[in-house]
Each structure stands twice: as structure tokens, then as C-alpha cells.
């Protein structure tokens, strides 16, 4: 009796293994990891994309895995790979994660795939150049493809501005301060810039760029954190909460900022384009959107500047993947970066569709026509600079964030001295890569 049962179990096992093996031979499975920073049903949407892709590409299937926040995604992938696991084939990670993963040797450049395409340069040329910057190394090789990108923009309460006699949004930081002061009351902040709460670097970069010097360049071993422009930029941000008195000392918290804006407790805010859809839906006043007027007026009277942000598509390979697998992986990347998917994903989330042609594709084309605010974020791309990224990104970002926070909260009164000290620490780390 027992013998017979064992035999049956064995047979079933053998059968299952054979089926599994045939299945594995016939079908290439792409493991796709993605984070979500939005409240939308990202899992459902990606499963839908995967099904569409599978229909077009028989023999390849995609396994979308939701991996939490950007930080969770990064840590999940690092843990799997450092522990000898397989990791993903394709993942959406921050565009600034490039050097961390390239350093470890886990990812491969997209350049090889682009070079093998018939119209590779047309494909790359369709992306907005400023969104490509973080995905390209100092030699000009493309590593990652823009997927869900954002920038910070200015949201303003157009009703309040009109009441105070301003028909148009500020175009430089003098106008920004003037309008913010005019709209500040006991109950209301004139301007909230979310630099409190652990990650001031992104918003700060808007000011550094608009003051004339981004803190990063194309060279991942150079950081410019103690230049006169960098110091003037942080001193200006600090003064918003002190001398100028248009917002809380030390800056506003990230999550509170849109809430206060929607509640009428802030007349203007700096926030990500990622919140555009939510703010337009929830506001009971007219929402204006404009480029970030963070810097002093230049020759044309404007002082715009903002960093890019958001996530790119990365291709993982330690050299063990077959040509067929790599081909399937690239097809999936091409699919996700196609104008159709970019238009759909951008319209659903509010991320900036990264390709010019996506803006002529439905549903984004009509949405941008109906709500011109969506187009502002795209048009601001002419004024944006690269988001902070270097070798040892996480550590150096930590040093910069800590220094900015101690300056903004008044702990370090002498901004120049604090930034000189930080620059020395940063140069000490980067020297290992030069």
C-alpha cells in the first residue's frame, strides 16, 4: 500500500518537473520590479501592460513584482544580488541610482541594444534631452531609459493671487518673495518649500541651478557644493523662513505641503509634478502651475531652475543571460518606453511622459489640451538641470542633506563654513574614484 502511494507521488513529481522544464524552455520569463510612489493601482496597470506585451510577443511573459517605495526597491534588489540571488531582469529605479549599480557591476548599458537597432538615434532623440542626462555616463553611453519622470514645479492659488492684484505667477525670486509676502497672513503662509524632513537636496537643487551653478556635472567624481552660487542658494532658502517670513523656519515638511495648499493655508508651494493630478482634482480654487522662479533675474528678467527626478528602466545582467533572454528584455524596455505606454502612464499618474511623441498620443494629448497645467511641467524641461548623482551617491547625498538641514534649521549659522567642511568630506570620498 505504502509502496504504491510513494510510486504515485514520485510519478506526479516527475511529471510536474518535466512540464516545468518544457515550460521553462519554451517561454522566457522577465522578472520586472517596480516601485510606486503614487496611490494609483500600479500593480493592476503593470499587469495590464504585461498582458498587452505578451499578446504582441508570444513566448515571452513578464512577471511584474511590486517592490514598495524607491528605497525598498533598491534595497530589495541589492539584498537579492548581494546574497547571490537572481534579482530582476528589468527594474524601475531612481535615475540617480545609476552609479551605485554600475559600481557593483549588476547592470548593463542600454547603449549596446540601442546601437544594434536600425533607428537607434531616432529612438534616443525622441526623449527630452534633460531627462536623458541622469541615465548617461561621462563617456556618453546610455545606461537607463527614462520611464516615470518628474520635476518640482510651482503650484499657486490663482484666486488668491488675483485678489492681491497679481495676474501672472512670479518669474524670478524677487517677484516670488514680493508675491509671497503680499499673500502671507497670520493664518496663511505665502510660500511653502518642502525642505524639511530628510531630503532637502532635491528642492535645494532648484535654487542652486537657478542661482547659476548646479551642484553636479557630467563627471560623477565632481561635486560643487561650496561654490558662491551654492552658498547663496541655501542662504536664500533659509531666509524664506527667517528674515523674509513667508513660511515656517526650517522649511515645510514634504507631506504637509500639498495638504496645506489644498486647505488654503498656503498661497504658493513647490512640489513634484507627481502630485499634479491629485491637486487638480482636489482643489476647490483655481490652481495655477508655473516654472520654479528660484533664482535672481537674468538677462531676460527670469530666474528659472529645477532638477529632474523620478525613475528609469534598468537592465540587469551579470553576463550570464543568453542572447534570446537579452532580446526579450530589451523588447520589454522598448514596450514600456513606447509613446503609447508613456502617454497612458503619464496621463494616469501625472509623471512627465519622457518622449516628445507621447504628447501627441492619446490619452495624454487631449488631457494636456484640456488641462494646460500638464504641459507646463514638460515646457519647464528647457530650464532643468541634472538631479544629484555621483559615485557613492547615497553617502554623499546623506552628507549634503545633513549639511543643508543644519544650515536651514539654523544649527550651522555660517553656511559657507558648513559647506566647506562637507565639500572636504565629499572630495575625500570621491578621490577614491578619480
Amino acid at each position, binding site marked *: 500500500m505504502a509502496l504504491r502511494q510513494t510510486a504515485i507521488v514520485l510519478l506526479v513529481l516527475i511529471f510536474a518537473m518535466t512540464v516545468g522544464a518544457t515550460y521553462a524552455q519554451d517561454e522566457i520569463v522577465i522578472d520586472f520590479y517596480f516601485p510606486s510612489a503614487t496611490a494609483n493601482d500600479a500593480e493592476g496597470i503593470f499587469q495590464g501592460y504585461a498582458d498587452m506585451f505578451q499578446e504582441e510577443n508570444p513566448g515571452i511573459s513578464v512577471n511584474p513584482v511590486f517592490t514598495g517605495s524607491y528605497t525598498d526597491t533598491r534595497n530589495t534588489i541589492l539584498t537579492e544580488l548581494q546574497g547571490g540571488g537572481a534579482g530582476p531582469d528589468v527594474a524601475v529605479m531612481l535615475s540617480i541610482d545609476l552609479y551605485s549599480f554600475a559600481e557593483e557591476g549588476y547592470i548593463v548599458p542600454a547603449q549596446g541594444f540601442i546601437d544594434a537597432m536600425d533607428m537607434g538615434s531616432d529612438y534616443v532623440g525622441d526623449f527630452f534631452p534633460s531627462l536623458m542626462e541622469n541615465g548617461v555616463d561621462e563617456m556618453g553611453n546610455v545606461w537607463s531609459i527614462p520611464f516615470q519622470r518628474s520635476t518640482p514645479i510651482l503650484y499657486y492659488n490663482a484666486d488668491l493671487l488675483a485678489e492681491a492684484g497679481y495676474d501672472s505667477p512670479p518669474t524670478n525670486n524677487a517677484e516670488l518673495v514680493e508675491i509671497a509676502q503680499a499673500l502671507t497672513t497670520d493664518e496663511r503662509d505665502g510660500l511653502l518649500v518642502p525642505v524639511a524632513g*530628510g531630503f532637502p537636496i532635491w528642492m535645494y537643487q532648484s535654487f542652486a541651478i537657478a542661482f547659476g551653478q548646479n551642484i553636479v556635472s557630467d563627471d560623477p567624481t565632481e561635486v560643487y557644493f561650496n561654490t558662491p552660487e551654492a552658498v547663496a542658494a541655501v542662504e536664500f532658502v533659509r531666509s524664506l523662513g527667517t528674515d523674509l517670513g513667508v513660511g515656517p523656519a526650517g522649511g515645510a515638511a514634504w507631506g504637509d505641503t500639498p495638504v496645506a495648499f489644498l486647505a488654503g493655508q498656503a498661497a504658493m508651494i513647490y512640489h513634484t509634478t507627481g502630485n499634479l493630478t491629485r491637486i487638480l482634482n482636489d482643489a476647490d480654487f483655481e490652481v495655477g502651475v508655473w516654472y520654479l522662479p528660484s533664482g535672481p533675474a537674468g538677462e531676460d528678467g527670469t530666474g528659472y531652475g529645477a532638477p529632474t527626478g523620478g525613475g528609469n528602466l534598468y537592465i540587469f545582467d551579470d553576463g550570464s543571460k543568453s542572447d534570446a533572454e537579452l532580446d526579450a528584455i530589451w523588447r520589454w524596455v522598448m514596450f514600456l518606453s513606447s509613446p503609447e505606454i508613456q502617454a497612458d502612464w503619464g496621463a494616469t499618474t501625472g509623471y512627465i511622459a519622457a518622449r516628445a511623441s507621447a504628447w501627441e498620443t492619446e490619452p495624454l494629448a487631449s488631457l494636456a489640451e484640456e488641462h494646460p497645467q500638464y504641459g507646463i511641467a514638460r515646457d519647464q524641461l528647457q530650464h532643468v538641470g541634472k538631479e544629484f548623482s555621483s559615485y557613492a551617491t547615497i553617502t554623499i547625498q546623506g552628507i549634503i542633506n545633513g549639511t543643508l538641514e543644519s544650515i536651514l534649521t539654523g544649527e550651522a549659522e555660517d553656511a559657507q563654513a558648513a559647506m566647506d567642511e562637507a565639500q572636504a568630506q565629499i572630495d*575625500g570620498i570621491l578621490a577614491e574614484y578619480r
Partner: protein
Amino acid sequence: MPARLRQKSPLAFLQPYLLIAPTLILVLMFNVVPAFRTVNDSLYKPARGLNAAGKPPDYVGVENFRDLFDDSHYMGGRFLRAFRNTIIFALATVCIGVPLGLLLALLLNRRQPLLGLWRFAVFYPSLLPLIGAASIWSFIFSDSIGLANAVLKTFGHPGLNWLGDRNLVLLSIIIVNIWKQAGYFMIFFLAGLQNIPRNIYESSSLDGAGPLEQFAYLTLPLLRRTVLFVVVISFTFAFQTVEQLQALGEGGPADSANLLLYLIFQNISERRNWGYVNAMTIVLIGVVLIFTLSNFLLFERDETNR
């Protein structure tokens, strides 16, 4: 079967070892081996620079520890701040949270109407998942829309920047921690109080002792085991704090409320910092171990002397 065992088979000496083996293996695998690895790895700096994944780490002796205690080093500055904060945080939790738990237990250890409801209300915070509770507090502490400032403003105070002011944020996190744990400590004290026989209070009243004297000369000495236990767990909990920080400003601004374990967590993802992460872990375990051992030694000696 039992008869055969009693005959002392030559392998019988193995029996106790077999019985503890499952636990022993798990403890070795998940506690002892990692602990020794951590000590070992704290003496190395991981390879840095390009293609670091393939290169072996460098042996550096105690240099990682030296960097940690160097204020001008990028990790040292953060570590020293987090270390100081952790000590303040632990002392505040112990010195305020434990007496508060005891006070609540004393108040809720007598017959009164709605006793069950009061006890539940005080114990309730410990039932909430920490990350959820901390998120509620992040709303309460919010600068512009928060409840705490709304209350302050009704009294004409302009409001405080609870999570943004570097001088306040550690206090805010201590408040959340005490709120969360006082009810939990109360349960231990309540159990301890109910083990004290009623009749000794009666006889001491006959001898003319008032409530304060009863507390000082009867309740407190008889609760000393519970007090020691609660002090030890509250101290070790303080060193394990992570969730509150995740929800309440991530230890910022500028690490002004950062704590050791969270700092370790923040630095684990970049290879270059693994040596520091291991060294910080050693310091953390060391402090908790010294504190816990000294407490138990004092306690044990006390017991044997009795």
C-alpha cells in the same frame, strides 16, 4: 521502549543534546554565528571604487571604530550624534515612562467605576502597530495642519515646529515613545501589585502607616523585581527604536533625533559603509549587554542575599 532506555544504551548520553539541538542550531545560526561575523567584519573596510563587488575587503583593524569616534569624519559626526541621542532617549524613556507606568498602575489598582474601560484606554496604545501610531502622531505634530499646534493656537501660542525644530524633535519622539509604552509597563506593574497580599496593607494601617509610607516601605520594595524587569526592557526597547523615526522625520533635521539602530539601517545599502555598520552594531550590542548584565547581576546578588 522506556524499558530499553532505562538499560542505558551506549548512545543514551546523546539524548539531552538531541533534545536541545533544534533550539541550539537556530541560536547558533541566527545569533551566535552572525554576532561573530559582525565582530570580524567590523575590522574590515569593504572594497571601494569601481567594480567593487568583485574585490576583497581590506583589513583595517580598529580604524572603523576610530572613524566613528572622530567628529570630523562623515560617519563619525552622525554616529556621535545618534549615540548621544540614543542615551538621552533611553534615559528619558526609563526615567519618565517607567514611573508613569507605575503611577497608572497604582491609580488603576483600586475598585472604581468603569475600571475595565480605564485600563483598556491606558493599555490601548500598546496594541496599535507602532508605524500606524507614529503616523497618527506625525499628523498631530504637523506644523501647519497638526492637532498639537491647533490646541496651542487656541491658547494664543503661535505653535511649535515639533518635527522641524532641531531642539524639539527628539522630545517629540520621546513623547510618542512614552505614550506608547507607559500602558505596556502598567500591565507589568498591575500584575506585580496584585501579587502583593492585601493583609499587609491592613496590618500596616493598624500600625498607623499612611498611604505614602505604605508606598515607600511596602509597595515599592515588594515591586522591585517588576521594576528591574521593566527598566531592563524599556532600556533595551529604546535601543531598538526604528519605526517612530521612519514615520516621524527619519531622524532629522540633520540627525538631531536620529538613533543608533536607525542610523545603522540608513547606511546598510551602500557597500562602502558596511564596515561602519558592523562597528556601530558592536557598539550598540555592547552598551545593551553591559546594561542588561549589570542589572541582572545586581538583581541576582540581591536575591541570594535575602
